[in-house]
């Protein structure tokens, strides 16, 4: 089997699974309990928080554990919107955000907020000057993702952060779900106020994520109750999941450089193999573009529906996707690709290939050969 759908979800690392199992079976206490079983869990939670903070170069007190990337994004956007509604009701985001940001913005519009959806260039990149232009006295939040999950475009986060440093009352949220473990990430240095991660995208277990909340940023909590996570996120902490996530974070963080290089090589090899095929078009960043994430390649086979190629590849035990998994049931072409100016026909035929560090060059070669076999055949059938 060749699994090239790592942007949808990754295989948890065996050591991560082991950590999960050990904590779940041995240290099951509730961290809020006063007895020492509770104390032990609280200690594990503290350690995990410290590891997570170290990997991001921030303070442990700035980490809020959540149930995943979607919750983190909702918590950041609604948290700022509700907390600071008396100061302003304008939010700036991009037109290529993940559904968990995009739909939350749509919801906020219904509640009376105004949202600017910035366009991108034809590679799916937001222009920092557009952010600058969209800012007004009323702007309470700018939310731009780090790496686009469909095109793999890396956004100019540092530059946007620099622009926003002149606007201390406008918070900067970054959905870094597709960026962590693939590219350097320094929220503290880049002027980021809020940052979302999801464990299952970097070989942790599902149902676990985090939100970095820079000290001093006031947020109305999304989930209210017992007051866990400094009051920012209530609910009994998923200690095994959190410990497992911290472990995965450390592993990815330590191997960032070599993982990055390895996946970059896979990406180059894949593009080199596909681009010469006249029926294949690359979407998003080019092979040597500096703002290309190493793990995502998006290609179209115009005239052929992506699903058909996907299922043909599936027969060869090769798994890819047509777009972000959570909207894959939708038969419309990808909102993100259209926003990046890709025409409808090309968008309908787009496939996303996404790597993990465990993928190999040999797998890439098998994939290229499979495409060479499948696509021309399909093209013939489609023509008659």
């Amino acid at each position: 089997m060749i699994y090239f759908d790592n942007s949808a979800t990754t295989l948890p690392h065996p050591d991560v699974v082991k950590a999960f199992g050990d904590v779940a079976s041995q240290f099951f206490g509730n961290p809020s309990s006063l007895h020492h079983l509770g104390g032990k869990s609280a200690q594990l939670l503290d350690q995990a928080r410290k590891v997570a903070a170290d990997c991001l170069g921030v303070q442990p007190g700035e980490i809020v554990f959540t149930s995943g990337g979607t919750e983190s994004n909702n918590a950041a956007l609604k948290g700022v919107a509700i907390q600071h509604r008396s100061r302003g009701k304008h939010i700036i985001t991009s037109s290529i955000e993940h559904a968990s940001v995009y739909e939350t913005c749509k919801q906020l519009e219904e509640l009376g907020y105004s949202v600017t959806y910035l366009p991108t260039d034809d590679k799916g990149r937001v222009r920092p000057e557009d952010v600058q232009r969209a800012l007004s006295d009323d702007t309470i939040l700018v939310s731009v993702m780090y790496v686009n999950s469909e095109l793999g475009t890396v956004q100019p986060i540092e530059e946007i952060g620099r622009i926003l440093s002149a606007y201390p009352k406008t918070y900067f949220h970054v959905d870094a779900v597709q960026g962590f473990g693939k590219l350097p990430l320094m929220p503290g240095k880049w002027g980021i106020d809020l940052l979302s991660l999801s464990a299952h995208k970097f070989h942790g277990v599902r149902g676990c994520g985090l939100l970095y909340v820079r000290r001093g940023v006031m947020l109305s909590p999304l989930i209210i109750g017992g007051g866990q996570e400094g009051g920012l996120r209530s609910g009994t902490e998923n200690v095994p999941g959190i410990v497992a996530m911290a472990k995965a974070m450390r592993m990815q963080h330590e191997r960032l450089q070599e993982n990055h290089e390895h996946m970059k090589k896979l990406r180059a090899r894949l593009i080199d193999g596909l681009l010469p095929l006249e029926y294949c078009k690359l979407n998003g960043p080019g092979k040597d573009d500096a703002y290309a994430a190493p793990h995502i390649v998006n290609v179209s086979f115009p005239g052929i529906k992506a699903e058909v190629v996907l299922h043909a590849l599936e027969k060869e035990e090769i798994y890819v996707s047509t777009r972000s998994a959570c909207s894959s049931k939708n038969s419309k072409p990808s909102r993100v690709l259209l926003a990046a100016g890709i025409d409808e026909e090309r968008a309908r035929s787009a496939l996303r290939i996404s790597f993990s560090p465990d993928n190999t060059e040999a797998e890439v070669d098998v994939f290229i050969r499979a495409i060479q076999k499948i696509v021309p055949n399909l093209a013939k059938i489609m023509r008659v």
Partner: protein
Amino acid sequence: MQEIYLDHAATTPVHPEVLEAMLPYYRDMHGNPSSMHRFGQRVRHTVDEARSIIARCVNAEPGEIIFTSGGTEADNMALIGVMTANRDKGKHLITSQIEHHAVLHTCEYLESLGYEVTYLPVDETGRVAVEDVAQAIRPDTVMISIMFGNNEVGTLQHIGKIGKLAKERGVYFHTDAVQAFGIEEVDVKRLHVDLLSISAHKVNGPKGVGSLYARRGIKIASYIHGGNQEKKRRAGTENVAGIVGFARAAELAINTREERRAHYEKLRRMMMAVWDEQSVDYVVNGHPKFYMPHILNVSFPGTKTEAMLMKLDIAGVAAASGSACMSGSLEISHVLRAMNLPEDRLISAIRFSFGYGNTEEQVREAAERIARIVNKG
């Protein structure tokens, strides 16, 4: 010295069978159920199966079960989701003073947004009077949220009667069954419940998973927005392993419910019998008849909760004051306060809660250790 865990109302250990059921989904079954390919689709089926199991456990339809990240999220979603989706109907919500903070603090949040909340009192056993609920209903009342069984004192509410009343008066009825599930018979149809929260980690399932039952046809706004998961009612990549573990735990809990109830009942009586034998001064807090057998809340007049818990911990007995999320603070429990107990009972209350793995020997041993501590003063 053997450690004896009597804090199962705070959280429970994961049952070995549950962990075993989960592990394959961290290995070769790790697909994303929303993926179009077979590798994802085969876990889609797994999630559907788990949904049917949970539905069966509360006598609901699979389509009425929404998976969440736990009991707290389920409570938040029920209250905020229903109140915001039914603004045209009214702004009033009825709850009780003894709810878990997941409900109470969410009510306060709704008040800050302009909603109106009535917090019904309870009697000294911790029960809400059905007449009080009836009287509190106004033309603009949208929902009633009264918990099934209280997590601190174990008192059961008149769920069936409140459900019937709510139905007659055209008001939605939510109940937080996080503590009652797996102990009491939870039948949403028979009890006329419209919304019901449960949490896996209270029934030997994994932490970070739970569900909200929302009766078909209920107007409820989505609360966590994003992808199309859970029919757009709860976005986020499904925690498949967690959901599988939850379903396995729920099944185990329901299949062993009667025998466990009998076992906890025995443990309770035994504990008190030991104290009676040793002339320990104690009073049981809660209802003498309508209680959940796994929770035993007692006051030892003359002692102080915090000091007692510490001594118990040293003696290898894990117990709690109120609910775990507030034991960190050790304020007087809002539940006992609402029950209007005398001061000496308020400041000396301890909650013991039984669960999987507790044996008669353990509990007798714990009762004896407790007796020694209390009698020493």
